[in-house]
Every structure is written in C-alpha cells, then in structure tokens.
C-alpha cells in the first residue's frame, strides 16, 4: 500500500512519450479535452480515439494499465449508456415491455460514453507517463506567468512535494501508534460504533500532535538551510523543451485551430 501511494499511477518506462517535457503533455491534454467537447457526431468522436490509441502504442504501456485506469468509471459508463438507450425519443429499434430502445438513443449514448472514455483515457495516459514530481514542476513553470497576478505557483509546487512526502510518513506513524496503543490495552477493532469512535481518541490525538511537531520541525530545518521561496532558486534538473516538444505543440495547435474553424 505504501509504495502504491508514493509512486502514484506513474509507470517508469523508456519511450518517446515518457521523454516529452511535462509542459508539452499538459498543454496537449488540455487542448484534447476541449476539442472532445467541440465534437458532436458519433463518427468524429470515434475518430478522436485515434490519437489516444497511437499514444498508447508509442508509450509502450501494457494495455491492462489503461483498462485499470478506466475501472473506477465503468459503472458510470454503463449507467449513462443504458439511460440514453432508454430515454431518448425517436425511431424504435427494439421493445422490451415498457422500455423502448431508439436509434437516436443508441447514437447519442455511444457518442456520450465514447467521449467519456477518451477523456478519461487521455487524463490517465498523462499521469501514467509523467511522474508526479515532473508534473508539479511542469505546472509550476506553466503557472509562472500567473505569478504577476498573485498566484503562488512556487509555493504550491513546494507544498505538493511536501504533502506527497508526508503521506507515507503519516501512514507509518498511524500504524506505529496503533501498535503502541494496542500494547497498552487499546482495542481498535471490536465493539459497537460508539466504542470504536472512542478508540479513535488514543489514536488521533497522538497522531495529530506528532504530525504538527513534524511539520514544525520541517519548517525549521528548511529555514536553517536558508530556504526562502522560489525567487532566484535554481534546479538540479531543469526542465528542457526539445525540438520534438516544439514540433508536437505546433502540430497539436494547428489541429485544434483547424477543428474550431472546420466546425
């Protein structure tokens, strides 16, 4: 469980998609998302899957990773599909008791669900091929222009890294405190709901207090190492846009403009 959380969904592989700059991938995913909502016919939404399939092939990701990413959504997908099949008026294709499946319903249902699937697959691909740290770095750089209107881009990136670092520590700490309190006679997994809630007190109070102490210690440690925000800070591994990044961005931008005009 610990490993799952710190690494996120990221799968480390060597592929052209993994090598792209995170900024390129974020921008393209955003453009793709907007484009999907501009498409309205079933044919065009089906064709929108071509770039997704191409990227999956290029990224060398095993297919089951993509399906695993889609898993939380599938009940939702089936529900949407059935609702559309049954509730859209039009030419009746099939009748079952009081329910009618119409041609319009089938078309609309497929369009809406395909759009959902591509949307989810695109977002999943971004996070499967980009590590959370690279993503936060990319976001920080992309949001740099917004610093002028007071958006704390660097602070947010820093807090994200700290929070990601804290998650496994907190889980470890919880397990440790649970064992410590059990050895003193605390009972965490029996009794009715009220008893269990009461058993939260000897767990949560020490957890929160020690967490606060950790946060204070971290702040002090950073201060004593002269951390003073993003101003003038340099990086060990600066992000680099390569020629392939620029080419891809231009192609995606042109495709997007074409789509808007052609619509």
């Amino acid at each position, binding site marked *: 469980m610990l490993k799952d*959380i710190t690494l*996120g*969904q*990221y799968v480390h592989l060597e592929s052209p998609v993994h090598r792209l700059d995170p900024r390129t991938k974020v921008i393209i*995913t955003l453009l793709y998302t907007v484009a999907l909502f501009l498409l309205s016919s079933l044919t065009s939404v089906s064709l929108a899957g071509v770039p997704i399939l191409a990227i999956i092939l290029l990224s060398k990701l095993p297919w089951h990773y993509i399906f695993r*990413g889609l898993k*939380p*959504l599938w009940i*939702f997908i089936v529900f*949407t599909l059935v*609702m*559309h099949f049954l*509730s859209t008026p039009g030419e009746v294709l099939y009748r079952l008791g009081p329910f009618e499946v119409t041609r319009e319903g089938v078309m*609309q249902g497929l369009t*809406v669900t395909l759009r*959902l699937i591509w*949307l*989810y697959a695109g*977002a*999943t691909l*971004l*996070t499967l091929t*980009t590590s*959370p740290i690279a*993503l*936060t770095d990319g*976001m920080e750089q992309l949001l740099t222009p917004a610093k002028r209107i*007071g*958006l*704390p881009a660097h*602070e*947010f990136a820093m*807090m*994200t890294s*700290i*929070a*990601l670092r*804290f*998650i496994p*520590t*907190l*889980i470890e700490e*919880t397990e440790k405190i649970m064992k410590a309190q059990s050895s003193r006679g605390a009972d965490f997994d029996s009794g009715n*709901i009220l008893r269990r*809630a009461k058993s*939260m*007190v000897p767990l*949560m*109070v020490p957890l*929160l*207090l020690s*967490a*606060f102490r*950790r*946060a*204070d210690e971290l*702040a002090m440690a*950073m*201060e004593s190492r002269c*951390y003073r925000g993003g101003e003038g800070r340099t990086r060990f591994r600066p992000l680099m846009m390569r020629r392939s990044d620029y080419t891809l961005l231009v192609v995606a931008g042109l495709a997007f403009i074409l789509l808007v005009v052609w619509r």
Partner: protein
Amino acid sequence: MSNLTLRDMSQVALFAALTAVGAFIKVPVPFVPFTLQYLFVAMAGILLGSRLGLASQILYIAIGLLGVPVFAEGGGPAYVLKPTFGYLIGFALGAYVIGLLTERLLEAHKGRLFLSVLAGLAIIYGMGALYLYGIMNYVTNSPISVVNTVLYGILLPLPGDIFLSGVAAFLGLKVWLHRRASAGAQEASQ
C-alpha cells in the same frame, strides 16, 4: 495567500496529506463512498483556521487532479467529471467556513465547535448535491430527479457524517488544548 510563512506551508501540506490518508480509510457504502476525509477537513478548519484550512483543501484537490491517487476512488484530471467531485469542492469551502466560525473562539467550547462543524457539513453537502445534480443532468445527460439527488446525495450518507462531526469536534478540542498547553509551556521556559 501569497504571504505564507514556511511554517504555514508545512502545516498546509500536512493537512492535505492527512485528508489523503483519510480517503484511504473507507467504509463501503453504495453511491457516495464513506471515508474519514471529512474528519480531517473539519480538523483543518478547527486547527489551522479559515485561510490555511482552505489552502490545505485546495492543495489536496490539486494533488488529486495532478493524478496522484489521493481521492476516495483514485485521482487524475478526469475526476472533475465524476458526480461526487462536488463534495471535494465542498471540502475546501467547508474547511474555510469551519475555520471562520471557530478561529475567533477564545475559550474552547465543545458545543460551539460541534455547531461550526455542522455548518461546514451543510456547505459540503449543498455543494456536493448541486454538483451531482448538474453533472448527471447537463454533462452526461442521464437525468436524475431532485428527489433522487437528495436521497442518494444527502440523506443516505448524512447520519455517518453527523456522527463524524461529533468526533471531529471532540478531537479538535483535545488537540487544540494540547497545543495551547505546550505553546504556553514553551513560552514559560524561554
């Protein structure tokens, strides 16, 4: 927002992480997953105050949207489309409101804390139900009636969360008193 001290930053990050840990502890209930997230949202409001409480929940949402699976059912930008995303937006607003209502209290008062947490809960549920209704009706075109929204979005998960509100108020009070006592002891020793 931009004038955060380092201590503020690490505490904000801490509560974003705690909310994430709360999401991993889940009790299977159909439609709206019941987790301990809300406990930590309320604690963020009580212990960090309105501004930092809000920041911690915004950070939590941002981390989840970046693709780290910190939400109850994973993460990633597409989570925005999930009908339950409104509750996450509600967390941010709820933490802010709980912070607003409690940060002016000079003396710890269990009843007042409980009422403030309930006010936050009302905001979370309002936001969640509105979003659920909006997503189902306008984005995925799968109509859901107002009655069903209220039933699945509010009435079914409500008892558990009212109970958690009591736990949150009680725990918040304990930790708040401990922290004040230790701060007082530190000042006395200096």
